[in-house]
């Protein structure tokens, strides 16, 4: 069941991904992206990352993609899609790079399943115990506010700066 669900979600993710790249209009791309994100949230759930799945839907799919959509609409894009693709050599090079990348990754992924180091980590059982103990949110929240609090605060500052920066850049010049 879980496996099946995973393959379904995986198929949606891949299809969405390809759709993002190949869609003719930006709005199409965006919609494919949304599908990918939702399917990804599903996969997160399958991996017992419920909190992340939730914010994936809310923040990513909900907030960020809407922002994209908003911008696409605002700028009224998407009428001249032929120019949107590189031609000839560019295309070949792109595929070459992608192919190389794929090859390298494939090589790296060989034999990932039984790495001796896994023995040192908690494993699915340990994770289940943790989730049971603290709950889906608490499991993330606890380290976030203890060991990683500095990083957490920094991300807050980063967001604030991004906010200020976005306003400053996008603001109409006086």
């Amino acid at each position: 069941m879980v496996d099946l669900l995973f393959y379904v979600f995986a198929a949606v993710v891949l299809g969405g991904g390809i759709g993002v790249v190949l869609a003719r209009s930006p709005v199409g791309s965006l919609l494919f992206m949304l599908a990918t994100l939702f399917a990804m949230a599903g996969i997160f759930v399958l991996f017992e990352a419920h909190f992340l799945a939730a914010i994936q839907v809310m923040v990513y799919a909900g907030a960020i993609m809407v922002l994209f959509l908003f911008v696409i609409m605002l700028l009224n894009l998407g009428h001249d899609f032929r120019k949107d693709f590189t031609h000839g050599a560019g295309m070949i090079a792109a595929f070459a790079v992608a192919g190389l990348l794929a090859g390298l990754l494939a090589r790296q992924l060989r034999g990932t399943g039984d790495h001796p180091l896994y023995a040192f980590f908690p494993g699915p059982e340990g994770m289940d115990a943790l989730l049971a103990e603290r709950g889906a949110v608490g499991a993330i929240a606890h380290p976030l506010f203890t060991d990683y609090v500095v990083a957490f605060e920094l991300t807050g500052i980063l967001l604030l700066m991004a906010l200020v920066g976005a306003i400053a850049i996008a603001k109409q010049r006086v």
Partner: protein
Amino acid sequence: MTEPARTTTEALAATAQAGSGFDPVLPGIILLLPLLGFLLNGILALVAGSRSATALRLAALAEPDSEEERVDHQHEVGAPKRATHTLPTWIGPGVMLLAFVLTAANFLRMLGADLHDAVVISYWSWMPTGALSVDAAIQLDQLSMIMMMVITGVGFLIHVFSVGYMKDDPGYPRYFAYLNLFVFFMLVLVTGANFPVMFVGWEGVGLCSYLLIGFWFQDREKADAGKKAFIVNRIGDVGLLMAMFILFSTFGTLNYGEIFAAAPTTLVYGGGVVTAITLFLLLGAAGKSAQIPLYVWLPDAMAGPTPVSALIHAATMVTAGVYLVARASVLFALAPVGAAAVATIGALTALFAATIALKQYDIKKVLAYSTVSQLGFMFMGVGVGAYAAGVFHLMTHAFFKALLFLGAGAVIHSMHHALHATHKDWDAQDMRNMGGLRRPMKWTWIFMWIATLAIAGIWPFAGFFSKDEIIWYVGTSAPFGPLYAVLWGMAVVTALLTAFYMTRMMILTFHGPNRTGEAERKHLHEAPLTMTIPLGVLAILSIFGGWINVPESVRNSFFGGFGLLPMSEWLHDWLLPVTAAADAIRLEQMGAYAYQSPIGGGHVTWGFIATGLALAVVILASRLFLSRDVKTALEEGEPTSGIGKLLYNKWYVDEFYDRIIVQPVIGISRFSWRVVDRVLIDGTVNAVGAVSRGAGWFGSLFQTGQLNTYAFILALGALALLGVLIL
């Protein structure tokens, strides 16, 4: 040299010297007086210069397109004289008179004292460093005193002459400023108690000579002549510098007293060091005293005002080389090769210059070459060890050559006025344009004949005693016997040539028909009293000046009035404290050989022969040139062939130097700049710059500004990284 406050030091030094019975009177003031004159005249000159500069600017503003007015140096007649013109008349000669009086007072005191050691007065420490300690000190001894007498005495007369000669020149105060400064430096030169102080004077007089030769600097040739004099002199100065360095590294001091005292024991007779020192000194002396190979500047130096030629380029500055050799007599006595070189250079120069003088038409050029020639005589004298004779000839030469130059100045002055009055575009100095001047300029004529007879060496004039003494000594000197015999022959020939060209000059200038032209003739007149009186004084000195150093045998003969003269060999005895050490060395090393005549015969015999020969040449030359029909410069033009052309063009030495030295140096300079500096060094530097710029350009090719490219390169980079990590 400029600190009156140090009189206490002087007094102290004087008391220290009191034992010797000579108590110098204000020697520092003697030096300071001309300097003071320089400063006062200098300020006046700047005021006058600024005023005329303003006038010039106003004129240029009024007529911006006009060509520059024809500059006439000597005449700005009509306008009332301002204070800047009247004051120098009193300041310039005034300080000289005071200086002369003080010098004379010191001279008389020294006469009365029995002075064996030089009086050294140190004013302040000049260059105290490490082992070297040089004081600003002056030294009064018999030699410097004689030189001071000549400088201040002849200098004063020439200053007075200048008042008349230069009075209409717009640069009058500047002229006196330079002249005073020159006297100051000349006094420093002869009184300095060590080599560096002497060198201050040495280069200082060179500087003044430069300024005075180029006095009428608007004239390119004159400015060039000044420059040439300075540069050629500097070549000699390097010699002097090197000599100083060797002296210092040998003796650890540069003071005369210590060096000359230590030299006989420190230096090996005829050794390499002392020979090197003397040869370098000779180089320096040859530069200043215009000897081969550095004589070329002196004829050109005639571009300066004529009194300057008289003072600097005849009477005083050019004799500095002779003074130097006499001063360093101990060293030259220790270095027979060096001394022989001095004598040889002197003889060669004397003969060489005399031949050139035979064919010159510019009256000042004749005198200039004559000066070079006479300086050669002096070099011969000091070269063969007859230091007193050299100095003697220096002194008498100062009298009669100054007289000749001043007389020539009077002639030129007169000619210039005459040509100027009718606006005739002739050369006022070319003798072919003169002739018959004895009628309008009677006194000048008489005085100049006196000087001519003196320089020709005819009894009883001064030159007879001094020149014949040198010739006699050249004939008797050792140790390079055959060499000296040759030199002796050259000296005799030169003496005869001297008589010949001097007579030629006198005849062309004063005798025969006048060639100036009708209109000009009535403007020819005798110079004013300020000019003739100094001539007269110098004429008297030219007659009697030779009697202070008559050998005993001569004194008792016909030439000395059969013992009528009160003293014999006075100058020789007077200079003994200075030259004794050198004489002793010569005697010790050469023994009786030192003063043995290879030719034979005594003073008196030779006296008769010399006078007779000179007189014969004078008469011969007079007859020759009186009978010749002289054409004016325009009619005749330059000699076009034969030896005459060669002599007229001065053996083409200037051209030779230009070809083998000046042009190559300029060529090397241009090569250094254009090729070495610009191409090689800068080329390398710029090439390095170009390489880095090229690398930058190559790198900038990757910077398209296209996001795609960047993304692509980024991806490639990531791939590479990944590849490295994985593979």
